[in-house]
């Protein structure tokens, strides 16, 4: 039972991290209808930038804020220089562009920081917690609380602010929102800023949680998160979060605890095909 609870806690942490990465993908898909594979490279850059700033200043706060700014800039650059000019082509064109961006960024990481696994020796400013004999490490608490905070802020922005309203209008129909006086390019840019900053947080959390930062850390998330946004319903942010949580927990429990020899990275896609057969629009997607 104790092992089960420990695995469950780990699974939820895994799911939280998936959720933070998948969020950005769902936001971008919702607004631009582009499969933003390079989002996972933004996530990798987030981990590296955070690690670098942490080593430089010794402050986690500076590392987090700096890494978020860095990734926001990178995200906007990808949107401006790659996606926006390719919007007029069929969807596979920006998709291949996105894959090329991701591979290029991975290579830059490898060339600049070396092909090895770096450690992220951050000490969190709060202790481990013991609950009924179960240890909840400070990194787990950090993952939970930061994810919860991000989700809350995002929920507030999308439901209670004019920016959120404009985002929803733009994701409904870019041309109509333009007629309503919304500058859709500003909204698209802000979406990339938000999604990329959240990816930076996710990258740093993964770095600290596993104590590992390496060039290809984004490869598996890149494609797994695609499956997750499909399961959640393309473009549905709550759906993406729920799907991520479920997958993180299922992966950890099925493979780590029940010891079922399932290929971990294929599980997301098996789930995806299952969901597609049952509900072709995804868990929370709207049928169009």
């Amino acid at each position: 039972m104790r092992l089960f609870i420990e695995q469950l806690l780990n699974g939820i942490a895994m799911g939280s991290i998936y959720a933070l990465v998948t969020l950005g993908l769902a936001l971008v898909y919702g607004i631009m209808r582009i499969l933003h594979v390079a989002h996972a490279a933004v996530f990798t850059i987030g981990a590296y930038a955070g690690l670098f700033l942490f080593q430089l200043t010794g402050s986690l706060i500076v590392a987090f804020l700096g890494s978020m700014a860095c990734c926001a800039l990178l995200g906007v650059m990808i949107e401006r220089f790659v996606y926006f000019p390719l919007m007029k082509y069929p969807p596979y064109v920006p998709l291949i562009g996105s894959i090329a961006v991701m591979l290029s960024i991975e290579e830059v990481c490898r060339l600049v920081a070396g092909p090895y696994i770096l450690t992220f020796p951050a000490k969190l400013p709060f202790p481990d917690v013991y609950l009924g004999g179960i240890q909840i490490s400070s990194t787990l608490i950090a993952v939970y609380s930061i994810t919860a905070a991000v989700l809350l802020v995002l929920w507030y922005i999308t439901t209670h602010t004019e920016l959120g309203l404009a985002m929803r209008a733009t994701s409904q129909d870019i041309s109509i929102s333009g007629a309503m006086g919304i500058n859709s390019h500003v909204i698209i840019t802000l979406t990339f800023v938000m999604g990329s900053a959240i990816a930076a947080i996710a990258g740093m959390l993964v770095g600290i949680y596993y104590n590992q930062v390496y060039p290809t850390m984004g490869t598996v998330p890149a494609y797994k998160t695609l499956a997750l946004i499909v399961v959640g319903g393309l473009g549905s942010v709550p759906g993406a979060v729920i799907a991520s949580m479920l997958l993180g927990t299922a992966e950890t429990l099925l493979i780590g605890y029940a010891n079922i020899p399932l290929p971990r990275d294929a599980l997301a896609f098996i789930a995806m095909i299952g969901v597609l057969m049952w509900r072709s629009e995804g868990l929370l997607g709207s049928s169009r």
Partner: protein
Amino acid sequence: MSSYVITIGTIIVIQAIAVCGLNVIVGYAGQISLGHAAFFGIGAYSAAILTTKAGFSFWTALPLVIGMSGFIGLLLGLPSIRVREDFLAITTIGINFIVEAVFRYVQFFGGALGIGGIPRIVLFGIKLKGITFFLLCLGFLIVVLFICWWFTRSWASLACYAIREEETAASTMGISPVRFKLLAFVIGTAMAGLGGSLYAHYMQFISAGDFSFPVSVAFLSMLVLGGMGTLWGPVVGTLILGVLPEVFRPLVDYRIFFYTLLLLLMIRFQPGGILGEGSVVRRILAPILKGGRA
């Protein structure tokens, strides 16, 4: 010719066969596929198993291998094609991951160890290797190109083009989108199976990693680079992306970076590919081609 050149040439020709198949699916019928390596792998694994475990020769196994790849293409295409366009890209990625996982985790397929001891191809009593094997592959590529050319002249291709351009309008002209998308899928995956079979007999040892998702990305990049929907695009794209890493070899560490950067610049500034509509090469060649025809 040095054996180094022959090795690279053989791999390029084998990949070109698979990319021609991808061209039928993506270029002619407009159905994005990011899982083509899975079908390349299905061809390779069925050839490997039939020749190492069931005692078939390459030639007796070939129709079965091609049939099997096409049939699995049909089975996996059926659910994929019914989903929306954006889903198709992701579903085909999923197919690639799942097929690779099956090869890796199921003992029948050799598990993590892969399958070794695949025999060389024997033709007229001669074991083919080096230049002779290269020529055999080239022969198959010519056959595949001929089939593609023949396909583009047929009513079936016209139906595929119509679906690619405007599915709703096509369906109001008596064209069943599902039927013709599946047709393209079957032809394309069968060609991938042929390529995979040649690959298995060339390498003589295969493992799941040879057919992973990055291989699918490479196939699609070759097609995009060459110009999708054109007859020669797959060959040109495969040739360039096959030769470039060798040309970049002196750059050592920076080699892959330049390679990915080139792909990015290509798709950003010439998304139609080298031989595509309105490309720089087309514009330069246009007067020559026209002159030739007149």
